[in-house]
């Protein structure tokens, strides 16, 4: 039996600890919020000299000349958008195929190991994709794939210009392929998770009417999971837009806008990674941070849209990649 006084003391101690613990969890949660605000403010602060100097010209001009201290981001923006678009063109059908295979086709004993293998691909650091792309993929493309593209697709009317040019091995196309390999695991993981939420009853009704497996997938599973598929795809796109190391190795780092996909180019993140520690003037550094602001705006819009779509499904279980 403890005295009333000791009990009151103990209770007060408990209350104090409760306040401290609750306060600490709250502070940490708010810190997450502040982090995003802090990133925005500090980047804008760093980018201010460049933005106020070049104004809209920063995004509409493609001069990038450290010697004359003039900077325009158009070439980098172009490269970022083109490589990401290429990546999505390659990655989407393959990711869809993998998700279909894992949910509808694979026998149970194959499902788990293949699923894990694809997820491991997602765990490999981006710099590994970069050196692999440069030393293994680029030579293959240079020696066999790109010459074929140039001599066959290059002759097509209208779109031929996209596929003409000397086979460097590195360039927009190579970066697009490497990015595709990197985002495939993310997109296919989300798609698989959404496909698994389709109620069996719906699929069985399809089969009951005599539909083939493919017809059930295309006419029941896909319409049911459309929002999740789009969300997953945009998550992959967000990743492709901001990816740095893998692209830096294989893009060629040339500040130019070329019609051909075989030509070297550059992306926003590759420019920052390559030039930041070499930036000699304050305006140069500021311009690189301004590039960061552009990247932040683009990826934020894409990721936020993707998250909202996945959120609306009411399932937070997937897409945490």
């Amino acid at each position, binding site marked *: 039996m403890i005295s009333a006084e000791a009990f009151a003391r103990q209770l007060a101690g408990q209350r104090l600890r409760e306040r401290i613990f609750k306060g600490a969890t709250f502070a940490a949660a708010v810190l*997450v919020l502040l982090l995003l605000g802090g990133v925005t403010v500090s980047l804008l602060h760093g980018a201010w000299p460049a933005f106020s100097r070049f104004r809209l010209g920063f995004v509409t001009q493609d001069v990038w000349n450290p010697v004359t201290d003039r900077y325009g981001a158009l070439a980098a923006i172009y490269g970022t958008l083109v490589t990401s678009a290429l990546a999505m063109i390659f990655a989407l059908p393959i990711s869809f195929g993998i998700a279909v*295979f894992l949910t509808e086709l694979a026998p149970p004993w194959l499902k788990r190991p293949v699923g894990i293998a694809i997820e491991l691909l997602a765990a490999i650091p981006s710099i590994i994709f970069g050196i692999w792309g440069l030393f293994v993929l680029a030579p293959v493309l240079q020696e066999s794939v790109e010459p074929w593209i140039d001599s066959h697709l290059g002759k097509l009317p209208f779109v031929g210009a996209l596929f003409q040019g000397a086979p460097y091995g590195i360039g927009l196309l190579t970066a697009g392929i490497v990015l595709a390999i990197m985002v495939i695991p993310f997109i296919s993981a989300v798609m698989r998770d959404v496909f698994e939420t389709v109620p069996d009853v719906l699929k069985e009704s399809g089969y009951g009417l005599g539909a083939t497996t493919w017809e059930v997938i295309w006419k029941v599973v896909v319409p049911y999971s459309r929002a999740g598929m789009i969300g997953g795809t945009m998550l992959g796109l967000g990743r492709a837009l901001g990816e740095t190391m893998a692209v830096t190795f294989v893009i060629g780092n040339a500040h130019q806008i070329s019609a051909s996909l075989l030509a070297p180019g550059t992306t926003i993140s590759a420019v920052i990674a390559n030039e930041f520690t070499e930036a000699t003037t304050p305006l140069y550094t500021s311009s690189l941070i301004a590039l960061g602001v552009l990247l932040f705006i683009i990826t934020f819009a894409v990721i936020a849209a993707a998250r909202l779509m996945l959120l609306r499904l009411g399932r937070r279980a997937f897409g945490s990649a």
Partner: protein
Amino acid sequence: MSRRGYRKLVNLLALALSALATAIGLIFLGAILWTLVKDGIAGLSAAVFTQITPPPGSTSGGLLNAIYGSAIMTLLGILIGAPIGILAGTYLAEYGRKSALSAVIRFVNDVLLSAPSIIVGLFVYELVVVPMGNFSAISGAIALAIIAMPVIVRTTEDMLSLVPQGMKDASTAMGAYPWRTITSIAYPAARSGMVTGLLLAVARISGETAPLLFTALNNQFWSTSLKAPMANLPVVIFQFALSPYENWQRLAWTGALLITAAILVLSIVARTVLSKLGPGARSR
């Protein structure tokens, strides 16, 4: 061809293509791992773990300072990121489960989870490197902590949400304050899931290159000072792989093998820990 035969053909074709897509994914994984093993093992020797990175043109040298730097900065990153991440995840799952503020924080955390890591590097450059006046190991660790945090927030919240409400209610009925219920009931019940989250966060940050490029930079010498630039495996791989020196390139591949092996082992261990929780608990 009959209508039925046509439908069967389409079905067969579509399923064959999906199997092909899976094969393509697996072939890329296989090709990357094969190259890493083939080129990485060629440079693997005791010197890799006992000597520091060589000057250009040298034929010897290892990766000791880079391995040390990566280990230290990853460890520090987790030590900074884990407490904040776990506390924030606890708030989202317990105290503020249904509040509007939590919904916003959850959303912001999800955005941070997928934000480009090079942006984090720029942020820490502005926040730490500029005021300090030089590149430093501690700024690298802070950058890694910021990348690890959202992963930990997310897994902590998910895992705490899986703890049966009845268990927590039982504790509350005994007169325990929420902090007592959380630390003595919820945390132990969610432990393996939370550990998985930490392991995945370690795996995620130990291969990060972009945020270290202008925070920790690199250091070709042996340095243990947190206020000075510090060597680390990803940036060394970046510099050495693009160099014209054969010896440097060989070391880059060896470093790549080491880092990938470490990350794959971590991921597999994390999955094994998690699989003990049973289905439904998956969260990457």
